[in-house]
């Protein structure tokens, strides 16, 4: 297993958002965590990238190494865990190219970085057209592409994505998932959090269902797709 999460709990102030969840991701896999708003999906990803502290007793391991020992910047640069955060968090006052350059801050292999950047521009041709534009002037879809591109450049042994479909028009959304598939084909593991359950399950190989800070279901994506409980949770039918 590449990423192993065991008994992960996270509390904000005194309120517990995650109640000891455990899951794992195999190298090269696409795994999704689905669940309603406020179920704790974003918190899970933030705990992995160390943006929020995990409670004592939690365990997160990447390739057998303890992730919880490191700060966010080391998690990214040492392990290559790249996080595409909710709301994209691109740097609006930097150009597209600068955003990508910054993502490679800790990488020393400049030739490989250049190749990765070129790859990103090939994948998202719309970004290349706008590469000298300030990122703040991009449309929502383009910003999302940039966020994914940035994560690709920053190390990407595993890419964890927080609702990449949010606010995207349906057509753009499908393009985005195609791009992610392509990235996965390059050997990047993908852990995806989504509200759009059907889309996510069609895309992923395996899935987990998170409810109120607990994992209530897990399994092959196809079987989850047909699961009556999942259906019920998403349309109340």
């Amino acid at each position, binding site marked *: 297993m590449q990423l192993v999460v065991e008994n992960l709990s996270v509390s904000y102030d005194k309120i517990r958002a995650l109640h000891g969840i455990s899951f794992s991701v195999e190298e090269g896999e696409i795994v999704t965590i689905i669940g309603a708003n406020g179920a704790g999906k974003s918190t899970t990803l933030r705990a992995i*990238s160390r*943006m929020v502290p995990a409670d004592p007793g939690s365990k997160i391991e990447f390739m057998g190494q303890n992730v919880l020992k490191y*700060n*966010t*910047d*080391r998690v*990214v*640069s040492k392990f290559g865990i*790249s*996080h595409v*955060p909710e709301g994209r*968090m*691109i*740097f*609006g*006052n*930097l150009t597209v190219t*600068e*955003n990508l*350059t*910054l*993502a*490679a*801050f*800790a*990488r020393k292999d400049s030739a490989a970085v250049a190749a990765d950047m070129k790859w990103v521009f090939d994948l998202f041709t719309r970004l290349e057209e706008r590469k000298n534009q300030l990122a703040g002037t991009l449309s929502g879809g383009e910003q999302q592409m940039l966020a994914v591109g*940035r994560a690709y450049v*920053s*190390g990407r042994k595993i890419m964890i994505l927080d609702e990449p479909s949010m606010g995207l028009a349906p057509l753009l959304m499908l393009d985005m998932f195609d791009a992610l598939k392509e990235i996965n084909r390059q050997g990047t593991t993908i852990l995806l959090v989504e509200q759009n359950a059907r889309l996510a399950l069609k895309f992923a190989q395996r899935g987990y269902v998170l409810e109120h800070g607990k994992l209530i279901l897990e399994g092959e994506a196809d079987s989850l797709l047909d699961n009556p409980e999942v259906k019920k949770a998403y349309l109340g039918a």
Partner: protein
Amino acid sequence: MEYFLQNLINALQWGSFYAVISIGYSMVYGVLMLFNFAHGDIFMVGTYIGFGIATLFLALFMPILPGWVIFIMVIIVTMFLASFVGVMVEVIGYRPLRGAPRASAAITGLMIGIIFETGNLILLGAQRFSFPALIESVSYNVGGVYFTNVKVLIIVVSLVLMAALHTFIQKTKWGMAMRAMSYDFKAVPLMGVSINIIAPLTFAIGAGLASVAGILYGQAYPVLDPYMGILVGWKAFVAAILGGRGSIMGAALAGYLLGFIEIFVAMVFPSTFRDLIAYSIILIILTFRPRGFFGMAHSTQLRL
């Protein structure tokens, strides 16, 4: 007309100090969202370091090397030493307060400033030092306008520094990280960038710039005083925020503006009206442009 040009040169010189110091302030303010009320005193400390280095180098190299070489050496060594002071202030004073309300950090800065002033008095006593002239002053008269090579040097060095900083901020990845941090500091670590490197670096640059401003100041007004930084610091604070958060150019411009207002007010009115009119103008500017000149549309609320 000559009178006007004469004052223009004075204003450029005066504005250069403000600009260089404000940029340092603006760096810290823009990148870390901190009121670094210690900045004026970092300027003071930098000036004293410059004074020490200048005296030392003059004694060592005076007859051997030409004045301008010593001048450059003094600037480089002083910048280096002063940046350590900046890093120290960050690590000891501000880092423990990173999650704390910004007002608390502001108070800490104020206190660090007082410690610097008092520490200086304790170490060096009440004796007033005078900054040695590194460049021999030569006066020129062009069409009735008098100026000295020192004045020109001050203006040129300031402009060169600003250009260098601008390049650093725009072209290097460190500069990118700083700009990114001023936009959204939470996302910066996700790029593999450590805040614990960028923050001290920012302070180091701010302190280095302040020390150069101090050396230049020492060439124009040689008397040193432990409290010389207070008023300058608050004015830099004004200029930095007037320029707009995260805008180096804005801070420089606001610094020059402040210098120009002060000199030209003194040209028309009695000099005691300087502060009154200068700050009235600032008040009016901020009342009608509540985000400064180049400020980003960002919430700048002081969270409790």
